[in-house]
């Protein structure tokens, strides 16, 4: 019987120890705050084929973050970091807008496909450059991707000649702003991407290999794990996903803003990954956790606007949420809780004579 009790306690412990759990808690808390501010917050409307409401907005805002967070999660698993995702986003956006505007074909499907393919190709190539610097040249990921972060934004500016290029193309616009089954296309696409990556990683042995590299690259090399190829793959995938996110971010307004698109989004992605319980030191990773982290960040951003928190106070608000989450996730705080519980349990036990 005590065995049963302890098993239940153990299960509860496992959930509480699961760091993403606290991300979910934070999302719920934020939504609750919004709900208090406006009782209609969670209501979802439906008109001409599209659901609408704050929740839908959050999902749509989360889509690009989810995409880059998933890529980041894989990179972080190998013990790396990708600071360049924001810059790769702007490059992909710049390529898309520049090409579309030079074609000036508002509703050509072929041009849309061609443009996106090219943008994603370039994004993947930039990711691959990161991969080569890390895996073949052997540079530290922080520096390699920092270089790419600096250079990427420059490249985007070169592509557009420093301008914020605007273009028209219905197909591309639909991707970013359209709806299928009442849900935003972007969000559905990000779900598809998450599911694909999840299957790829967990149904194959890729996840194990990435974790092995992240935990101990020397030992895994001797065990025959192909570190180079895998790192190259992972950084390329991160580049590709950043490219997709970049195309969407720009397509939603059909403008690329060379100095703002994707600016500092790498930080959001890294936060999402960490909130999801993946350690930046590499190793065990959780894509589901990263998704929760991404949703949390989108919720946070939207909450700040919804509550009308003054722009000047937003960073501090963000900081407080992050610190609170970090504390909840920390072993020390949990052990404090455990001790309290244990003390309570003990006093109960002592009350009942053996």
């Amino acid at each position: 019987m005590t065995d049963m009790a302890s098993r239940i306690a153990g299960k509860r412990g496992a959930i509480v120890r699961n760091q993403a759990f606290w991300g979910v808690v934070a999302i719920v808390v934020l939504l609750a705050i919004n709900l208090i501010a406006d009782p209609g917050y969670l209501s979802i409307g439906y008109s001409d084929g599209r659901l609408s409401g704050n929740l839908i907005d959050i999902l749509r805002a989360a889509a690009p973050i989810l995409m880059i967070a998933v890529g980041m999660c894989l990179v972080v698993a190998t013990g790396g970091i990708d600071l360049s995702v924001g810059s790769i986003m702007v490059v992909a956006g710049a390529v898309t807008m520049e090409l579309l505007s030079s074609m000036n074909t508002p509703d050509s499907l072929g041009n849309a496909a061609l443009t996106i393919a090219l943008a994603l190709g370039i994004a993947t190539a930039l990711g691959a450059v990161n991969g080569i610097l890390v895996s073949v040249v052997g540079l530290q990921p922080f520096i390699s991707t920092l270089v790419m972060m600096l250079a990427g934004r420059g490249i985007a500016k070169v592509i557009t000649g420093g301008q914020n290029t605007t273009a028209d193309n219905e197909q591309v616009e639909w991707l970013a702003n359209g709806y299928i089954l009442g849900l935003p296309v972007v969000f559905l696409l990000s779900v598809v991407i998450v599911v694909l990556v999840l299957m790829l990683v967990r149904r194959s042995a890729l996840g194990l290999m990435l974790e092995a590299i992240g935990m101990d690259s020397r030992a895994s090399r001797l065990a025959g794990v192909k570190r180079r190829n895998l790192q190259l793959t992972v950084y390329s995938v991160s580049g590709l996903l950043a490219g997709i996110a970049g195309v969407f971010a720009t397509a939603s307004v059909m403008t690329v803003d060379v100095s703002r698109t994707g600016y500092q989004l790498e930080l959001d992605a890294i936060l999402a990954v960490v909130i999801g319980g993946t350690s930046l030191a590499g190793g065990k990773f959780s894509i589901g956790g990263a998704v929760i982290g991404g949703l949390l960040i989108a919720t946070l951003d939207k909450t700040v606007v919804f509550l009308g928190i003054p722009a000047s106070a937003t960073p501090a608000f963000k900081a407080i949420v992050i610190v609170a989450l970090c504390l909840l996730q920390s072993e020390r705080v949990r052990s404090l809780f455990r001790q309290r519980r244990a003390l309570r349990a003990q006093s109960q036990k002592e009350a009942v004579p053996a």
Partner: protein
Amino acid sequence: MTVTTRPPTGSAPGPAPSRPSISDRLGARLSALPTVAALLIFVGMIIYGEAAYGRIVQFNTLSNLLVNNAHLIILAVALTFVILTGGIDLSVGAIIAFSSVAGVMLANAGWHPVAAVLVMVLIGSALGLVSGVLIQYFGVQPFIATLATMFLARGLASMLSTVPERLADDSAIRELATQIKIVDGDKVNDLVITPGVIASIVIVAIAFIVLHRTRFGRTVYAIGGSEQSATLMGLPVTVTKLGIYVISGTLAGVAAVVYTSRLGSAQNITGIGWELDAIAAVVIGGTLLTGGTGFVLGSVVGALVLGLMNVLITRDGGIRPEMTTIITGGILLVFVILQRLVAARRRQEQT
């Protein structure tokens, strides 16, 4: 100057086996090689600049290189401590914003300038302590902890004020930027030095002594080598790690004083991205981001390389704006690849 960082030793007794010792001696030097390379490249850049654009090797350009980058040098020293332990501090730029806005507002509110300056520095220490506690006691990863501190400091700064806060014209804090002319040349061609520059030089000197001649400093290196080993060797790891984040924050506070006094005003948007400049300076100076190897003097050279690069780009005047970040990135890349080659070389020598 950077080569002497390894202390001299008495000759080891006994016959040294000849095979390893030559290459090993080379090995010991090689760890300083990226730093030396940075120095050489710095000198090379000066020579190139003088030849291509002129007016580089003259009093004002060189002293302005120091004056303009004094705060960056201080930040680079701060980051050197942190990076040597294998950590990172993203909050320094935001700390500068908060500390300077708060300091200027206090000074304008009638606080004694010394008190205001002290508070500016202590704000840095306090925020550093916050990062340190998060990292050391709550197991938050340095990247995330200092990111949180960065948001916090930036947020506090903008909650204080979003408009430029200007120091009163007669504020004593401004005197910290007094240009002391050592050689009064033609027009502006003077050799000048400011209290800020002096502060940065003193800080570098102290940092050098702390890192190379105190147990605290050696513990910093040991933690960078292996934190677990350092703990099991009985070194005061917790205190040291807390210490370096406090040092880093404090130095950011000092940098805030130096920068603010020169500008005469403070603003919540100051210092965005400076942490990356400081990190770049440290890396260019030959310190590995994984921790354990590097020299504080290298970071100074790194900061000067970055500063000089900006001067040269300005002097050229024809470089398209979109190219500047690409160039910065490229230079950084060249340096790290160089370091990489040296490291590979060293490994080869050792076996």
